[in-house]
């Protein structure tokens, strides 16, 4: 058996786009995204007809702005969920990271660049500990990250003394609210999330890390017996998800101008909802970044549109819950039909 020959040019498949090995860049995978994208369009058209204000530039940017935090958390969660795991610590972890950012920048007076990098590293550390607990101690991901959710939520209150930490410098808040595009009034946070989503999409579909993410979710034991160091890669993947937690912490605190230690709870479930609506399977092995971005957009479009229509706040969650059921059921029905 020789090592390798030149690729056969006539056998080219079209580029796999944002699909990874799991969904194989197949027609099926694309159809899923088309479905999710289609429902996003339908929802938008509905709101646009109900109230034309929905389509205004101001409203669209505010929808995108509202997607940033959930979207960033959901990007990291996509990797974890494709491995067949779950990360419940992203919400309070984000609050803790915001507090850490406040401590580094406001309390300790460190330069913003240092503070932001420190926060990202701290987020990665949260994920690293999750990874150790899961891959080395062998705890189920649900338990390990549930514990981290409590620990992070508690630490956020302890470190901040249960009081918000304010940022005085506009240079920090500009990370989220400023606009690097002159005169467009388009929030930087959206651009950051878009850039990060592209990186995450490439990482998931085109790199070794991505392939192993799908392989572990598809069949962890077979992957290990194939000679892949599954423990190491799980730690890497949870650490990566932690990096996203850190970034979300920076983005949310920059947007609010303060670190709110008690606000994280609940974001983890919204992030998971976005991932699931985007067609990623909770049992692992399948999913995509494009799907997650669409899922996150669907959630914020719904929230926004219902506000525009003056639907009472209480009803919005009822509708969101219903949408999750419909989205996941439609996905399953489609898979059953395809099988």
């Amino acid at each position: 058996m020789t090592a390798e020959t030149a690729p056969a040019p006539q056998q080219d498949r079209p580029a796999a786009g944002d699909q990874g090995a799991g969904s194989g860049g197949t027609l099926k995978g694309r159809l899923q995204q088309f479905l999710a994208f289609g429902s996003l369009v339908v929802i938008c058209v509905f709101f646009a007809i109900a109230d034309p204000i929905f389509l205004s530039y101001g409203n669209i940017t505010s929808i995108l702005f509202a997607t940033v935090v959930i979207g960033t958390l959901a990007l990291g969660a996509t990797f974890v969920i494709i491995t067949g795991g779950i990360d419940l610590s992203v919400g309070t972890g984000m609050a803790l990271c915001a507090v850490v950012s406040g401590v580094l920048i406001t309390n300790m007076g460190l330069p913003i660049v240092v503070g932001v990098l420190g926060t990202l590293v701290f987020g990665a550390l949260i994920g690293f500990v999750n990874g150790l607990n899961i891959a080395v101690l062998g705890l189920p991901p649900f338990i390990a990250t549930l514990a981290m959710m409590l620990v992070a939520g508690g630490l956020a209150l302890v470190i901040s003394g249960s009081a918000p930490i304010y940022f005085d410098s506009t240079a920090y808040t500009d990370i989220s609210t400023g606009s690097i595009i002159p005169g467009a009034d388009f929030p930087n946070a959206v651009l950051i999330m878009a850039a990060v989503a592209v990186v995450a999409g490439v990482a998931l579909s085109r790199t070794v890390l991505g392939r192993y993410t799908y392989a572990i979710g598809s069949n962890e034991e077979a992957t290990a017996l194939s000679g892949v160091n599954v423990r190491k890669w799980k730690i890497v993947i949870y650490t990566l998800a932690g990096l996203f937690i850190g970034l979300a912490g920076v983005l949310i605190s920059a947007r609010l101008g303060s670190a709110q230690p008690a606000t994280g709870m609940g974001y983890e479930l919204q992030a998971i909802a976005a991932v699931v609506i985007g067609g990623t399977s909770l049992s692992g092995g399948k999913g995509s970044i494009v799907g997650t971005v669409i899922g996150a957009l669907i959630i914020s479009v719904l929230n926004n549109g219902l506000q525009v229509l003056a639907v009472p706040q209480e009803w919005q969650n009822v509708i969101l819950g219903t949408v999750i059921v419909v989205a996941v059921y439609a996905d399953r029905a489609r898979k059953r039909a395809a099988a």
Partner: protein
Amino acid sequence: MDATSQDTSDAPRGGAGERTLLSVEGVTKSFPGVRALDGMRLDLRHGEALALVGENGAGKSTLMKLLTGIHTPDTGSFFLDGEPLHVTGPRHAREQGIGIIHQEFNLMPDLTVAQNIFIGREPRKAGFMLDHRALNSRAQELIDRLALPLDPRRTVASLTVAQQQMVEIAKALSHDPRVLIMDEPTAALNDAEVRTLHQLIRRFLRPETGVVYISHRMEELTSLCDRVTVIRDGRYVETLRTDQVSTQEVIARMVGRELDAKAGPQNVRQDRETLLSVSGLSTKALLDDVTFELREGEILGFAGLMGAGRTEVARALVGADPVTSGTVTLRGRRLRITNPAHAARHGIGYLSEDRKQLGLLVEDGVDTNMALSSLKERFTSFGFVRDRAIRSRAEELVAALRIRTPSVGQTVKNLSGGNQQKVVIAKWLVKECDVLIFDEPTRGIDVGAKEEIYRLLNELAQQGKSLIVISSELPEVLRMAHRVLVMAEGRVTGELAAHEATQEQVMHYATLRPGAPTAPAAAHDSTRPRIPEAGK
């Protein structure tokens, strides 16, 4: 059911009547794109065990699905005792007296034996309270009647595969079926366990009952069944008397061509260098001082009864299970292997007995599976995966190993067992491993494809790869290997040159008690040979 304990004789012959118990007439069933069954016929007589053989994809499982009412036939009909039989679902099938034991167990591992047997019809007190005492005593009654070595209170997870198989059988027989259909019941059993199973089947056979016995292990058929029905490509081929036909003739009808019987190993020159030596390998659970050497280009067979520790040796060797002591030396260099990734890096690949659970990503493509073990070192540049390189390498291997797949992107679960096994082999060839450990390489693979796997393994050895082959099918080990190690209860109890080894000798060593002095290979006292010599 009541008559089972006072069974008449151990012999299946003579008791079989001429009347038809179950008959299948002209059954056709099509699925989109495939005609799974085409004018299928079959007749099962009263009191007989009828063998049903055919390659994978010949239509056996479709026939079973029709008989359990999971699908309905397009045309044709079934008759039970001359009466038309219309089955609407698995439960209805049971009520009609048709019991089916599927190849893959339908047991709940965390429930007890008794709970599994009576699942869905638990004895109750006061209408809704479970009556545990009645449950266990009824299970015990059944187990006694069938003379099974089972404890109704044990959880199924704690049982061996053979015992789990017995639970399946007890469950099926508790419904008092008239026709029992068994799909590859011995795929995971060793020879001694197969004999126990056959005794059980003979006890079940009475003038008013019958068994359809589906198997890939040709040697078994003659000992259990009088007649064998051969099907191919969804069509009935022929029904033959097992005492008038040779195994080779049956196989030829199954595959529609003659097979080359002789694919045995060429001798390895004794001057070949020792590649791998394992010394004093022990684990907490089972293994005790396992020592052996493997030469370049050699096929080393591991024989032994179920639970003897053959798979455990493989898993310990590649670091999948922790070891308490022992050294592994590859080309004179001592290795410390603590996980399969280490082993793979040193060129030692393990091909598990459980392809679907441990060998493949069944939902992924042929190319993805082949690239998995060597993604990082062969198919990436700067961390990015080179899909085109993967694809072209996969295409080469599909051609070289004659893997039948429409494309390299094909989802592996859609391939036949033999082709799936080849994908696993290809995965390790991509890795360029020197030592390949095959655990039950032909389990669940039909006869024609088995021959191809044998030939492939032989070719690999010719190319200088060193192979360890673990198999519960003795004829397979004797035929494939240059040298055979026999294990019993976690120890190596004997070593034989394969071309001289007989099944009796192997069985002698396989049944040695640990600690007992190693007797010479004479072994007149050991288990009677039940299986005819391989390839005759």
